[in-house]
């Protein structure tokens, strides 16, 4: 796929003054990001690096700043400090390489628009403010709907869909963005089992195509099945690394504190050893 319109390596843009700790061509690298809604920081001085050709989960208890970290990385909410690099470039310069699936509950599904309209929003960076949507691009949008199994619903008003169908439409819109990095905010929240299966199949296909997938995830029981890499957060960074050696009882206890009962931990398919 010919998506590489800009150089991948940051060092090439000549900013040699940057400290050595700063990235790499990783799909998503967050450095020293702090976000605050009030006086208390929601995310504090977080460093994170998400690898290529992998599915990564951002995990932590409610209010730990999972979604906040994702939104701050995208610039959807302002950062108090810190920097975000996408394939080695500042995020603002790499927007066409990012696809984003916000939380389903963050929008008003009564909005007067159709399924196809929503998917076509994903083509915005290619169409522009005033450009015409070509037949080729419209066909792409239909293809993306087909990939999530929603082709028959293209003319439905979005409010008439079930929660799972709405989530699939959001995923189709992200596919239409034709990106290299997919950021998803709780993609499995409130969806039926069939939809969860359909979504994970699409995401695994993306990974197989060489894309990076980063998802805010709350269901600890599926982490080992779905993901390769995990980032544990509770306002601060707790741990990050491959699921096989990072998704451990010890790290989970450090992340969730007393909120995760020991019996619950025993049932999780966590990596061996504490």
């Amino acid at each position, binding site marked *: 796929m010919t998506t590489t319109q800009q150089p991948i390596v940051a060092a090439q843009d000549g900013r040699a003054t940057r400290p050595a700790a700063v990235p790499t061509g990783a799909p998503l690298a967050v450095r020293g990001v702090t976000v605050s809604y009030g006086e208390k920081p929601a995310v504090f001085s977080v460093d994170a690096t998400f690898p290529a050709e992998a599915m990564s989960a951002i995990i932590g208890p409610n209010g730990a700043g999972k979604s906040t970290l994702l*939104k701050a990385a*995208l*610039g*959807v909410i302002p950062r108090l400090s810190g920097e975000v690099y996408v394939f080695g470039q500042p995020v*603002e310069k790499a*927007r066409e390489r*990012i696809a*984003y699936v*916000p939380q389903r*509950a*963050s*929008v*008003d*599904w*009564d*909005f*007067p*628009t*159709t399924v196809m*309209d*929503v998917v076509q*929003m994903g083509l*915005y*960076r290619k*169409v522009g*403010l*005033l450009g015409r949507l070509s037949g080729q691009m419209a066909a792409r949008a239909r293809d993306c709907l087909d990939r999530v199994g929603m082709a028959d619903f293209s003319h439905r*008003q979005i*409010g008439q*869909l*079930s*929660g799972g169908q*709405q989530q699939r439409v959001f995923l189709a*819109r992200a596919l239409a963005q034709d990106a290299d990095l997919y*950021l998803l905010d709780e993609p499995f929240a409130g969806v039926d089992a069939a939809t969860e299966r359909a979504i994970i199949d699409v995401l695994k296909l993306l990974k197989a195509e060489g894309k990076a997938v980063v998802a805010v995830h709350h269901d600890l029981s599926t982490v080992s099945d779905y993901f390769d890499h995990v980032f544990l957060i509770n306002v601060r960074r707790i741990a990050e690394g491959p699921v096989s050696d990072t998704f451990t009882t010890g790290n989970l206890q450090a992340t969730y504190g007393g909120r995760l009962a020991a019996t619950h931990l025993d049932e999780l398919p966590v990596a061996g050893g504490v």
Partner: protein
Amino acid sequence: MGAEFVQFSLTPILIGVFSAIACALPGNFLILRRQALIGDAISHVVLPGIVVAFLVTGVVAAIPMLLGAAGAAIVAVILIEAVKRLGNIEPGAAMGVVFTAMFAAGVLILEQTDTSKVHLDVEHALMGNLESLIWFRAEGWHSLLDPAALATLPDELPRIAVVCAIVVALTLIFWRWLKIATFDEGFAQALGIPATALGFGLVVTAAVAAVAAFDAVGSIIVIAMFICPPAAARLMTNRLEHQIWWSAVFATLSAVLGYVFAGYGPLWFGAQNAVSAAGMIASVSGVILGLACLFAPHRNRVGVGKEEAA
């Protein structure tokens, strides 16, 4: 429909139609953004904006008034945000506090200053004076081709026509941004669309439409036109594109029917005097919304919460 219509009714009806459309277009987006009250707030803060502009310049002229009102709208938006954040108060209450306080300040300043020589008073501010915007020199339809007669058109007509054209142009140009950012602001920002500035621009555009309309038709009609035609239009369709057209149709219907009913309605019932055109136009728009609530094809969907809609 002859000379008399052209002389006494044509220009007020056109001014009413342009005002209604200029307000209804941004009203569509304000309602979908759950900011309908902003329209209300704007139409109130326009008053102090105009009064201050008058005090500074000493004349009642279009440009200073437009600037004053736009400035007041910006101040109001900043104050609303400040009250919301500093006071931790919910948005509706913050808007309510700011616009009533600013409107009251406008009334106080207006009372304390010598505006008696010019046509600027509280009653005018509320009701406008659509009925007085007649075309004295018109002698019939042929006057529309007569440059000398055209030169005597009331100033309000070209002014609101230009503002209406600007609002239509902005809606067309920024259509894609408005649609994406109104539906999903976070996604719009992730795409690099300046959603915050766009929201601000929408409010300022609404303020400019409000002040241009306000001069001719008063704030009652402005409030009604921001909300009633778009709300009724939403009940007619599930497509944003169609909703915009319906809102323009309803705005036009309200203005034309309202003006005719106000001028001739009382006569039909044997009364002597006409009633306020602005009041009647606003009332007609309310009746249209009521009818839409009862009979429109998509009435079931408006106002449903996220859970029920799923």
